[in-house]
């Protein structure tokens, strides 16, 4: 599985847009890019996943450039409840990577008033 690099922590204020970038220089052709969110004392929760270009759902947007060596998770108008650790993962279910999730260090997002 490709190694991912993301900032250890980020701070923001309520109502702002937050963008968390993840680097994955060794991403393979079949790899998908997946983001999880983890609140304290809870298991991680799947947020969004993409292969290329842009993906948007009710929670976030995921931007993936053409070379796919990085990706950006965008959280619009964050609130205090978005304070959590966000993990970027890269893997491919066809190779078994999708079933064996490898979590990196994650980014601790702190949202303040």
């Amino acid at each position, binding site marked *: 599985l490709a190694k991912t690099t993301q900032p250890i922590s980020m701070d923001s204020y309520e109502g702002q847009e937050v963008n968390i970038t993840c680097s994955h220089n060794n991403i393979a052709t079949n790899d*998908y890019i*997946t983001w999880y969110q983890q609140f304290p*004392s*809870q*298991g*991680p*929760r*799947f947020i969004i*996943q993409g292969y290329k270009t842009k993906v948007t759902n009710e929670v976030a947007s995921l931007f993936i450039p053409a070379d796919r060596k990085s990706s950006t998770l965008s959280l619009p108008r964050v609130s205090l409840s978005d304070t959590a650790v966000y*993990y970027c*993962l890269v*893997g*491919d*279910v066809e190779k078994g*990577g*999708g*079933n*064996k*999730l*490898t*979590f*990196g*260090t*994650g980014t601790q997002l702190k949202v303040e008033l």
Partner: protein
Amino acid sequence: SAVISQKPSRDICQRGTSLTIQCQVDSQVTMMFWYRQQPGQSLTLIATANQGSEATYESGFVIDKFPISRPNLTFSTLTVSNMSPEDSSIYLCSVPGLATNEQFFGPGTRLTVL
């Protein structure tokens, strides 16, 4: 989505003893996963449990230390054997979702070993 429960939610144990953690899913699933999350750290996969076969352990984890049972398609147990303070962690189970790389996680079991 799958609803996953774990028992116990937390426990404090003495070194040298063993604890069995239960994971119950509200639907039948072929694969279940067990992870460990040490204090302030990320998650590490311990093993993959398939119903009807031996669990597959990741590097650094062995069956004697973390025996796993998978008696049916909705249930699994992980035992942490001969515990030491280094085993103090949160243990989580998960099951695959429909999307690639999607997994649903249980709430975790917080284990403290004295």
